């Protein structure tokens, strides 16, 4: 029997689920390998009977927490799908303020409506594994669609999904890119988890470590490099927090494994 797979989403842009559609013809092969029983974005059919739950998005409110827990109870395997689910996403930057301050900035004139309203109950961004056990992580903003297929196939074959644990610099060197530090740019590549094929430096962008850090990042050395290349403490903090506010807020906070 084919394993039953269900997709779910919480606070996110849904860009990671979009990468499934972006598999183009391959999505038909995926549909042959597994039984997709729930995928709200693309299908009306829904079932609560599933083996693998693939979850995009970060958890903002108690009502989201409850929904996540009920998914966890039903699923044999739970996969955190993308930077929001693995790390809390860019919206984790909002945790630098209290939820009251955020609500006041975005909804300045609606205090009475927000009070005692479950939709606005202390929203702040958390990764899935701060609430439930996560079995596997598919990092990235967005996820890499080919990595998704590799992970799914590995799971079906009973292998450990192959997520790299070396820095983006390794892939960037393989691409024969000129190091961004030598052309006046700054980059999180030395500490960022690879697997993206160094897609940002390859396209003239700077790595922001959207896939999180490697398990043992040389954070101090990297900070010294950023200082050496002229970044102020505020600028260094900006680079580290864009996707990894989780690690800045909690030194003990786990990496995606």
């Amino acid at each position, binding site marked *: 029997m084919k394993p039953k797979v269900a997709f779910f989403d*919480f*606070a*996110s*842009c*849904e*860009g*990671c689920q*979009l*990468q499934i*559609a*972006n598999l*183009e*013809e391959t*999505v*038909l092969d995926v*549909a042959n390998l597994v039984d997709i029983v729930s*995928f*709200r*974005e*693309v*299908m*009306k*059919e*829904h079932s609560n009977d599933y083996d693998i739950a693939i979850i995009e998005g970060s958890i*903002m*409110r108690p009502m*989201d927490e409850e929904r996540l827990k009920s998914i966890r109870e039903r699923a044999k395997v739970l996969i955190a799908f993308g930077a929001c689910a693995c790390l809390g*996403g*860019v*919206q984790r*930057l*909002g945790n*630098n*303020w209290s939820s009251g301050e*955020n*609500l006041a*900035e*975005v*909804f300045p*004139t*609606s205090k009475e*409506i*927000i009070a005692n*309203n479950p*939709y*606005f109950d202390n*929203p702040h*961004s958390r990764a899935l594994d701060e609430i439930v056990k996560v079995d596997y992580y598919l990092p990235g*903003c*967005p996820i890499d669609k080919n990595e998704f297929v590799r992970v799914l196939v590995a799971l079906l074959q009973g292998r450990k999904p192959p997520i790299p644990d070396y820095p983006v610099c390794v892939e960037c060197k393989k691409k024969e890119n000129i190091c961004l530090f030598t052309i006046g740019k700054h980059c999180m590549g030395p500490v960022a988890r690879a697997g993206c094929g160094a*897609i*940002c430096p*390859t*396209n*003239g*962008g700077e790595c*922001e470590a959207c896939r999180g850090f490697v398990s043992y990042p040389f954070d101090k050395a990297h900070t010294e490099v950023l200082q050496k290349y002229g970044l102020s403490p505020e*600028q260094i903090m*900006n680079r580290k927090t*864009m996707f990894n506010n989780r690690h800045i807020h909690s030194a003990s906070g786990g990496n995606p494994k």
Partner: protein
Amino acid sequence: MSSIHVHVEHLTRVEGHGNIVLNAQNGKVEKIEWQVPEAPRFFESFVRGRPYTELSHLTSRICGICSIGHSLASLKATEAALGIKISEQTQMLRRLALHGENLQSHVLHLGYLVAPDLLGKDSVFPLVATHKAEVLKIVKLHRLANEMSDLLCGRTTHPITFAPGGFTKVPTEKQLEEVRNRLAYAVPDVEAVAEVILANAGKLPAFQRDTEYIGLVSKKEYALYDGDVGSTDTGKHKVDDYKNIVNEFLVPHSTAKFCKHNRASYMVGALARFNLNYELLSPMAKKWAGKFGLKPKCTNPYMNNVAQLVEIFHSAEDTLALIDKLISSGVKEEKPAMVKLKAGRGVGAVEVPRGILFHDYTYDAKGICTKANCVIPTNQNHMNIQLDMEALAPTILNKSEKEIELTLEMLVRAYDPCISCSTHYLKVDLKK
């Protein structure tokens, strides 16, 4: 008499979470509500304190499907605030990127999300068995639109190459020519898919409700990247004056920021653009509008689907013309324009697949964002969806609950709502 209760929790085949509630008793509608319980993410709050170089990368994350449009609205706001001028080539490449997004989004919506309704299926997967040739054509077009976006943006979702003042990497003439040729060969596939939609267009309900239509307008072109704000009711307005157009407001017992301009609601998106800018559509787009009997001003919101199809033809033809122009003038390896920091405020507007999008930023003298506001197309449409439902529901109560549900779902789906984007829209029924 019977009572009818339709409660669609988490409407499917749309982006984000939305609920439809209809209660009717003895042939009278007691409650009809379009609710959006999506969690707020506070983009406008957390971008405060971030440097101008980051804004387009952060705000692209508002929406996976419209990330190219969000990036461009963001860059235009930043460039307006800091007084950055962009080259003619950058303008053309951005227009191409926007066409790429329009193509991928419209193909996805029509091919994967709407077609199942027209062909009586619950999703695209059963269509693979019954309409394999057409599904494969849709997949092929989707791939082409995505690869065009990859080429211009570095990747399809969350552009990498976009920077204030230009591109960090420009495509080569050879790469552009390849896209051009593939697209030219794909036009017959678009026509084949359009024929299938045409053959089933009778399934789109013949509902009409006149409203105000708002979108970018320009004398020069079918406005997507640039222009003034146009309204079918009140004519032209300046983009900088957007707050007087969107008029975000709150209603009692609701947390939503609604938008209204000249009437109780207005509509944005492909149908609004079509109604405002029909004359400037490409020849094939006009031809296909004619085949569907689509004429401005069309007041049937279900025809937004057909307006999207018409725009697929327009974007394809305009892409071919733009690439020809780029190649004939020669693609240069330009660096983004130099930026001289200064304090200021700027507003950027672009048309994204679902309608007009505004970003508005204020920067301090160091280029750090101190205030941000984003007005998303789906937010602008929510009130119009609600009023459409109020007008439509009483006319369909004689149908079965299943048919009522489908008719209402198809209405919301026609707007192609992007609910994750609409950060403010949260309508709550607080009555217990």
